[in-house]
């Protein structure tokens, strides 16, 4: 029973993810796309929880929903002629796009099905936040510090790029 | 400067061009001609002894025969105040704008134009502002103005 419910939840989440992801890439109204992106990302957070990655799920919501999507919405406000809904949002490559992505899909699904996975039946560490903290401070300390450099670079870059106007 | 001094000074400064009216009981009241308005304003504004830097009021009057435009001016620095007016015929009434001297004249003049129909030269922004935008019933402050829904106070 337990398994069935989690299966059900998984299918629900994947349904939401796939449908809203398709809306993200096809909707004409870019603001609606952004909202569906948020929905997608939120559902992905649900998937993370199903995979016992609670911390990651919270991070997903915090960063994607709380920060990046707002940035995207702000950028939309700033740049698009929102009132003019008739703007064509997709280019002439629709057929090519369908072709390429279905090709990719076939290839990857095939390889997933054909690969023999060595599944290890073992529970994840209990408190994943604590474990991650320890890992970050020990094994991944260099990437961790590099993250700050990356963020600094992004910050400075963004500031330099976006600042220009008034100065 | 008290009133008599002020009157004397102004009369001497603009001999022949300005006329003292014996109408105001308090401050001096002059009458000038319409084409002298700009020069007059400029010189009273720049004159050291007068230094009229403050425009109190512009009011148009419909006396029933003519239009009068009354200017009340004052000096904040010298604490003096006087009025002057000019007359305009009903037909083709037109006066100069004195915005270049006192920027605050803008709305006063607009009001004169809107309510009395006295044209203002070089005003630059003569658009409706007190009356509704679609007003088409003429100049309501004129004495002979009337409109269908205008109810006069019953005579008592």
């Amino acid at each position, binding site marked *: 029973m337990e398994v069935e419910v989690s299966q059900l939840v998984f299918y629900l989440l994947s349904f939401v993810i796939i449908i809203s992801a398709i809306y993200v890439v096809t909707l004409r109204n870019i603001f609606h796309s952004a909202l569906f992106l948020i929905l997608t990302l939120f559902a992905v957070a649900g998937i993370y929880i199903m995979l016992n990655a609670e911390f990651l799920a919270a991070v997903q919501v915090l960063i994607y929903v709380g920060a990046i999507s707002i940035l995207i919405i*702000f950028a939309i406000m700033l740049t698009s002629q929102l009132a003019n809904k008739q703007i064509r949002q997709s280019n002439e490559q629709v057929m090519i796009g369908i072709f390429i992505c279905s090709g990719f899909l076939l290839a990857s699904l095939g390889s997933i099905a054909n690969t023999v996975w060595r599944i290890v039946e073992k529970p994840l560490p209990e408190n994943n936040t604590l474990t991650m*903290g320890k890992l*970050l*401070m020990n094994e991944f300390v260099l990437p*961790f510090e590099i*993250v*700050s450099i990356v963020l600094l670079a992004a910050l400075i870059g*963004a500031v330099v790029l976006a600042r220009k106007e008034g100065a | 400067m008290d009133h008599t001094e002020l009157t004397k000074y102004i009369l001497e400064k603009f001999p022949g061009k300005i006329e003292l009216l014996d109408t105001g009981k308090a401050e001096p009241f002059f009458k000038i001609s319409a084409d002298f308005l700009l020069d007059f304003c400029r010189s009273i504004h720049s004159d050291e002894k007068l230094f009229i830097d403050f425009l109190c009021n512009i009011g148009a009057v419909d006396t029933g025969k003519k239009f009068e435009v009354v200017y009340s001016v004052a000096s904040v620095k010298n604490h003096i105040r006087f009025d002057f007016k000019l007359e305009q015929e009903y037909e083709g009434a037109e006066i100069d704008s004195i915005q270049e001297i006192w920027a605050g004249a803008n709305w006063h003049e607009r009001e004169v134009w809107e309510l009395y129909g006295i044209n203002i030269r070089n005003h630059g922004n003569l658009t409706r502002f007190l009356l509704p935008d679609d007003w088409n019933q003429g100049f309501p402050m004129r004495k002979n103005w009337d409109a269908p829904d205008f109810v006069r106070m019953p005579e008592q």
Partner: protein
Amino acid sequence: MNEYAAVLIFLFVGIGVVLFTFFLARLVRPSNPYKAKNQNYECAEPPIGSGWIQFNNRFYIFALIFVVFDVEAIFLFPWAVAFGQLGLYALIEMIIFIVILLFGLFYAWKKGVLKWV
């Protein structure tokens, strides 16, 4: 896992409750739309143009900086939880991490980005 079932169910309960009140209101409330009523409110004047203005969003730059700091914050959480079991080096690492990012903040500050343009 089971703990998080609560989130899902609360989500449904929340949406359901709100929709239910909407439905309840629908039963009682009058509805009489007409053109003037459905016009957008703009201080009792007919609105000028569309409300979907595209405007100079000076908040954008703050959002940019926010994203960076938000990302930083998520690294602080595991650190804070694990700090009790770590040593001084963790503190120093974190201080380096924070200082590097604060440097970015001060850079933006000095560049006048934090000031309203």
